[in-house]
């Protein structure tokens, strides 16, 4: 979207269904002997807000980090605008990463810096940005996430969880990225602050023509912000021939999904999982 703060009245109308902005082809990620993701194929189009749901340990965060090039896939490819990330040289990859804004689960703010310096950090990595411009953009983005000016001199340790998430969001948006990736944006927050974050995700989408990927296991967030939901299942609990993506559809289709594991997850029912855990404990 680079710098143009174009307003979109109806976010769904902005979805470009022609060419995918982000695409994973036969993506497999393995840590030592543990298979996390296997043979994942997915396409995310411009303007979409995709929620990736699934229980803990199913590989949601690994998928996100692989999509933005933080984790190298064991096999398979990730394409950004048709370009294979694994074929990019380091400088090209650095430039590609600036097209993403990543909101980390625990905000990942730099402890040693003030809020101002944290939000200004991505701008300072780019040369030829004056301090006056940096100040203007930092204050504007903090204002957009509802934080007052007096917060800028504080250190991350002095902020509440919700404030930290909002600073993390301001930092992710300061380079006006094309894709914003939210990793568990509402985890650990009270219901009111969770809703504030959900509203901010929607507001960001209204304000900028941004593509969003929201990793969450909070169904309220998935239903409220997403126009497409993907549900992942832990590879270790599937048969080799099973797909790891149990559901790919709109939030309204979730309740009536054919796969009972999807319905159980959406309703928050343990189901067979209780028996599985008991069997594991016995063995």
């Amino acid at each position, binding site marked *: 979207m680079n710098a143009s703060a174009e307003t979109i009245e109806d976010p769904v109308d902005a979805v470009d269904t022609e060419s995918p902005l982000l695409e994973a082809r036969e993506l497999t990620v393995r840590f030592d002997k543990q298979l996390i993701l296997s043979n994942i194929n997915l396409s995310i189009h411009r303007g979409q807000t995709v929620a990736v749901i699934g229980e803990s340990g199913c590989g949601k965060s690994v998928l996100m*980090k692989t999509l*933005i090039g*933080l984790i190298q896939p064991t096999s398979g490819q990730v394409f950004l605008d048709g370009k294979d990330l694994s074929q990019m040289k380091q400088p090209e990859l*650095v*430039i590609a*990463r*600036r097209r*993403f804004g*990543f909101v*980390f*689960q*625990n905000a*990942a*703010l*730099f*402890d*040693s810096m003030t809020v101002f310096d944290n939000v200004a*950090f*991505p701008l300072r*990595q780019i040369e030829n940005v004056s301090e006056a411009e940096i100040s203007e953009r930092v204050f504007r983005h903090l204002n957009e996430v509802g934080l007052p000016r007096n917060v800028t001199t504080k250190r991350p340790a002095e902020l509440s969880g919700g404030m930290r998430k909002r600073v993390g969001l301001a*930092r992710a948006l300061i*380079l006006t990225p094309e894709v914003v990736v939210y990793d568990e944006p509402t985890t650990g927050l009270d219901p009111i602050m969770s809703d504030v974050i959900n509203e901010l995700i929607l507001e960001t989408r209204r304000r900028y023509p941004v593509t969003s990927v929201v990793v969450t296991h909070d169904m309220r967030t998935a239903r409220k912000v997403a126009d497409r939901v993907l549900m992942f299942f832990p590879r270790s*609990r*599937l*048969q080799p021939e*099973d*797909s790891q*993506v*149990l*559901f*790919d*559809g709109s939030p309204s*289709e979730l309740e009536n*999904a*054919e*796969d*009972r*594991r*999807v319905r159980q997850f959406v309703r928050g029912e343990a189901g*067979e999982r209780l028996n*599985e855990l008991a*069997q*594991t404990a016995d*063995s």
Partner: protein
Amino acid sequence: MSDSAAPLPSNPHSTRPARQPSPLVRWVNDWGEAVIEGVVTVGDMAIFTWNMLRWMFTRLPSRGTVLINFYQVGALSLPVVALTGTFIGMVLAVQSYAQFHTIGLENRLGAVINGTLVRELGPVLAATMLAGRVGSAMAAVLGTMRVTEQIEALTAMGADPIHYLVVPRFLACILLIPALTIMADFMGIVGGYFYSVIILGIDHAAYLNHSREFVTGFDLFSGIFKSIFFGATIAIVSCYRGFHCEPGAEGVGKAATTAFVRSFVLILAIDLLLTIVLNSVYYTLYPDATSIL
């Protein structure tokens, strides 16, 4: 992509009891794993160092980042290095006097104390203090950054963590450890002189003459030269440990402890190696050099 309601997979764990390997097989297995891990760590550390050196010679970090590290490594370490240097000088005087007094050579204490300080104890002491005070802190800070995803955040924002976090720390260590060594040497010399001349009553002129006669510029050079290698070792080992920190508070604590222990062991090993090399160089340059006694 909604699949039909597939049955959940059965428990994949086999019920057949696994055959226990013999103690010899287990021993070979354990040693094999340890050797492989050691080789992987050395290789990984070499790549880490290469990446750091590459950044250092292509693009230096910003002045602000470098200065903060210089302050933390240099200015904040000076008092502790000066204090320990003074005590070591005095302890050397106490120990050496007890030995030299019995053979009537106490006037030569200056040569022993100052020679030992400038060649060995000054650089090793400064390096040990730096490894304990700065190296552990580096590993803990970087380890915490790893655990709290701050290092990943740097990468995600298009910054290189090695360039941003490791290069300034490496520069601070290698450029400031000579100054800390000189401070340890100086305060040790002052402490040794104070205890020998003021407390033990050794003749002032004899103390200084013997010091001047047996402690050469090459000794001072060799101590400072060695210290640069010690500084590089502390920075690389500590930053590497921090970057490869295991999760959780225990992981951070382990990274800090391991950084100090490994740095200290490597400092002593490198000291031995460099002392042998520098002694050979010294006796090649000065074949007529006299011994202290």
